[in-house]
């Protein structure tokens, strides 16, 4: 059923968040809070070298240490074959994943796991790590992307040959893949242009910087049954990857989803769980591992840094006639940067006749990258939207008018092939145009920037069930970890269908043994896809309730209607009966067929694409180079906001992370290839004083493929901020800053150089 035009009573309201009390009182149970009887502490020994051959690992001294119960190395893991899969949040090679959680033969980055111990205390485990003797042959390393692409660069993988080029290379390379997207004739387009602008841009790898480090507790019982408690964006993903990497049956693994303290894409793959299971199997005890913040930085994935060249040609009236982009993305130690979406997203906001985009996926001696909100899109959009600002200046055109002139609409054919349908980009631009922030004059001494962004959004596999409890209250269970408010949004959709207040529905995240398979929480898919499953489950429950009422009243089921949480006779001909509410029907459940429940599984398609536009005002301290965000407004097409407060929170969070990406965050490597700032003191994420109140403006162009019109909302808001801020700095200072982060020392140096 479709409720887009219905008079909704719950969807669109702002009930109190169901996880709020537990989180503010400290009662919420995260993975690090879990305990087990006789539990051991697991610790991981990590490579001190960015690139080294492992000659030998002697664990005998560590094993002899009192209190040490198990030590594992790659010898304790199956040497699995190369196998491409798409189980988490992107293409994944299981061999690479196995090698990433425990190095075999070579350590490929500083922080790469080479061994692990389990001991009775953390102190003993730490001491045991020191007693593990690893002999290395230190190898030349390469950190930066273009250096890794050079013909004489140290090669990370002897069996990596560049894909996507012909003829097939015979020599290994750090360039894992080349992808191209072409539309029209870009050379002819540039010949036809009145104005051409071009630029070279770089971004640094930035970490998802979730506040909760990775943690898990694993128990390998003597009967081969395995229980894992973990914080992740997908406990089914943990089950699948752990089974694959250890050669286990999925049926023997049960994963309990702990509360999660942020993920942003970084918790869509495993680091610890297979190691904890291996240690538990060897020791016969439960094993808990939790990363330190330093380990999070050294051992888990940031998103890619990149070097990008962009060129845009336009007519005098602002019509873009050609666009070209070359993207070089760091993948970290294994292939798999978000180069594909990076190539597709940069120009997806515009109706362009001639486009040429080439992308390179490049390995180097850094941690393997992981997904981060709208993977690839923020990087490519920083470059494109910075250049769009320069184009507007060169044309002496309003930057919003330039976007309006070239905006993608329904029927616009993208440069990667498909034609946009049911998009709301022009509505977003209209909302910018009419917003008080855009209409207000720029304050003296400040600068204003505008940038736009796109993300596909996805659907995928989800399971949900809805139970009417004995007293008529309702439980909705899903397989989606709640990162951005999905317990609220799913409960609200179920409540809307059932016709009861949101507070009557309790939504829980069920473990892997208690609900059907559900893909990870990511790609902005949960409210869309899991919400679709939950809505359909609630609809099945309503049909069942109507059948039960018909049975009680002894009338045909089609003579019963469901309204406001009650069964009514459909009309006077159906008979005169008092309405039956959920509680009354639940009371009669045994007599009318047993428990009232329904489960639905879906592979949801039709996730509507999302567009956003951000306006940013900044001031710049010319003595220090410090940039202050004075005012920030983020406009986004959200389809339909199920719980507007959560949607606004998603948008504010994306913008806040973008502020950090733009102004401060970067991995700093020394000349030895070692990261020098693996902590929040030196890797500076935004703090409260860095971020003004971000105004989120919700534009609602319903997605016709969702029962309530929802679109994903979590990815888009991190796409525009970096360019919006860079454009504001350009406006305030006259300086184009093409290299992120635009940190105080860098901006100060540029100001000094400009005199």
């Amino acid at each position: 059923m479709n409720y887009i035009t219905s008079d909704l009573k719950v969807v669109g309201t702002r009930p109190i968040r169901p996880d709020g009390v537990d989180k503010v009182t400290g009662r919420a149970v995260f993975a690090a809070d879990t305990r087990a009887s006789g539990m051991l502490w697991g610790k991981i020994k990590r490579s001190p070298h960015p690139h080294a051959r492992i000659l030998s690992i002697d664990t005998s001294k560590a094993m002899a240490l009192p209190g040490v119960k198990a030590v594992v190395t790659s010898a304790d893991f199956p040497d699995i074959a190369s196998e491409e899969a798409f189980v988490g949040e992107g293409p994944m090679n299981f061999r690479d994943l196995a090698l990433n959680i425990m190095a075999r033969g070579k350590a490929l980055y500083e922080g790469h796991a080479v061994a692990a111990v389990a001991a009775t205390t953390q102190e003993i485990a730490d001491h045991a790590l020191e007693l593990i003797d690893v002999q290395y042959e230190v190898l030349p390393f390469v950190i930066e992307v273009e250096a890794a692409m050079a013909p004489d660069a140290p090669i990370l993988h002897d069996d990596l040959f560049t894909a996507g080029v012909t003829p097939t290379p015979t020599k290994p390379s750090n360039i894992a893949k080349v992808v191209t997207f072409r539309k029209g004739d870009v050379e002819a387009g540039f010949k036809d242009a009145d104005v051409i602008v071009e630029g070279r841009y770089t971004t640094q790898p930035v970490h998802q910087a979730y506040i909760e480090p990775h943690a898990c507790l694993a128990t390998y019982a003597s009967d081969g049954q395995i229980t894992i408690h973990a914080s992740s964006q997908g406990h089914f993903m943990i089950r699948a990857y752990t089974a694959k990497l250890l050669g286990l049956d999925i049926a023997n693994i049960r994963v309990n989803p702990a509360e999660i303290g942020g993920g942003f894409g970084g918790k869509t793959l495993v680091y610890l769980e297979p190691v904890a299971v291996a240690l538990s199997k060897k020791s016969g005890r439960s094993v808990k591992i939790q990363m330190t913040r330093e380990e999070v930085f050294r051992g888990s994935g940031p998103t890619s840094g990149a070097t990008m060249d962009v060129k845009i040609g336009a007519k005098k009236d602002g019509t873009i006639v050609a666009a070209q982009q070359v993207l070089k993305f760091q993948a970290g130690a294994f292939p798999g940067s978000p180069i594909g979406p990076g190539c597709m997203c940069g120009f997806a906001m515009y109706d362009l006749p001639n486009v040429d985009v080439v992308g390179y996926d490049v390995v180097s001696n850094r941690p393997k990258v992981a997904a981060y909100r709208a993977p690839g899109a923020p990087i490519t959009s920083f470059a494109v939207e910075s250049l769009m600002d320069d184009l507007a200046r060169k044309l002496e055109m309003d930057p919003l008018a330039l976007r309006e002139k070239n905006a993608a609409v329904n029927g616009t054919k993208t440069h990667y092939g498909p034609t946009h349908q049911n998009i709301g980009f022009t509505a977003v631009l209209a909302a910018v145009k009419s917003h008080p922030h855009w209409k207000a004059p720029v304050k003296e001494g400040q600068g204003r920037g505008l940038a736009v962004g796109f993300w596909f959004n996805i659907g995928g596999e989800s399971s949900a069930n809805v139970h009417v409890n004995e007293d008529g209250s309702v439980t909705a269970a899903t397989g989606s970890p709640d990162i951005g408010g999905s317990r609220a949004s799913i409960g609200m959709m179920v409540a809307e269908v059932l016709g009861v207040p949101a507070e009557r529905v309790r939504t829980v995240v069920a473990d892997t043994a208690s609900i059907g398979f559900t893909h990870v929480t990511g790609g902005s898919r949960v409210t869309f896809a899991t919400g679709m499953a939950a809505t359909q489950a609630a609809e099945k429950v309503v049909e069942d309730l109507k059948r039960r009422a018909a049975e009680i009243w002894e009338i045909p089921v089609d003579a019963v209607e469901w309204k406001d949480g009650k069964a009514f006779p459909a009309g006077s001909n159906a008979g005169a009966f008092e309405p039956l509410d959920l509680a009354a029907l639940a009371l009669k459940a045994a007599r009318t067929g047993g428990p009232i429940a329904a489960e639905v599984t879906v592979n949801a398609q039709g996730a509507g694409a999302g567009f956003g536009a951000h306006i940013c005002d900044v001031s710049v301290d010319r003595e220090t180079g410090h940039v202050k965000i004075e005012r920030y407004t983020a406009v986004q097409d959200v389809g339909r906001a199920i719980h507007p407060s959560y949607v606004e929170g998603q948008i504010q969070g994306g913008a806040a992370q973008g502020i950090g990406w733009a102004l401060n965050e970067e991995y700093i490597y020394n000349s030895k290839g070692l990261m020098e700032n693996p902590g929040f003191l030196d890797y500076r994420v935004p703090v409260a004083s860095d971020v003004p109140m971000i105004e989120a403006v919700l534009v609602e162009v319903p997605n016709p493929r969702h029962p309530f019109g929802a679109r994903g909302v979590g990815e888009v808001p991190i796409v525009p901020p970096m360019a919006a801020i860079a454009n504001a700095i350009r406006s305030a200072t006259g300086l184009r800053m093409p290299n992120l982060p635009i940190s105080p020392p860098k901006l100060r140096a540029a100001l000094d150089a400009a005199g």
Partner: protein
Amino acid sequence: MPIVRFASGSACQQYIGGKSELEVAATTFRRLVLELEQRFPGLGRQVEEGMAVAIDGEIFQDAYAAELKPESEIYLIPKIGGG
């Protein structure tokens, strides 16, 4: 018969001699995978594992039943994940 277009430069093109489009007899994504595998061994698996199909602008992932019509715009693009 439907015409299937490949994102230019995609890994699929090595199987089809650099062409960017193919005419296929398939009426569903499942039939498309089977036909591609039969005509170009390895391509069907590549498409099934790594590609999404965009039909008239709507992206379908892992959907055997997605319907392919002769008049439809059909593009194979890399699968989309997220963060």
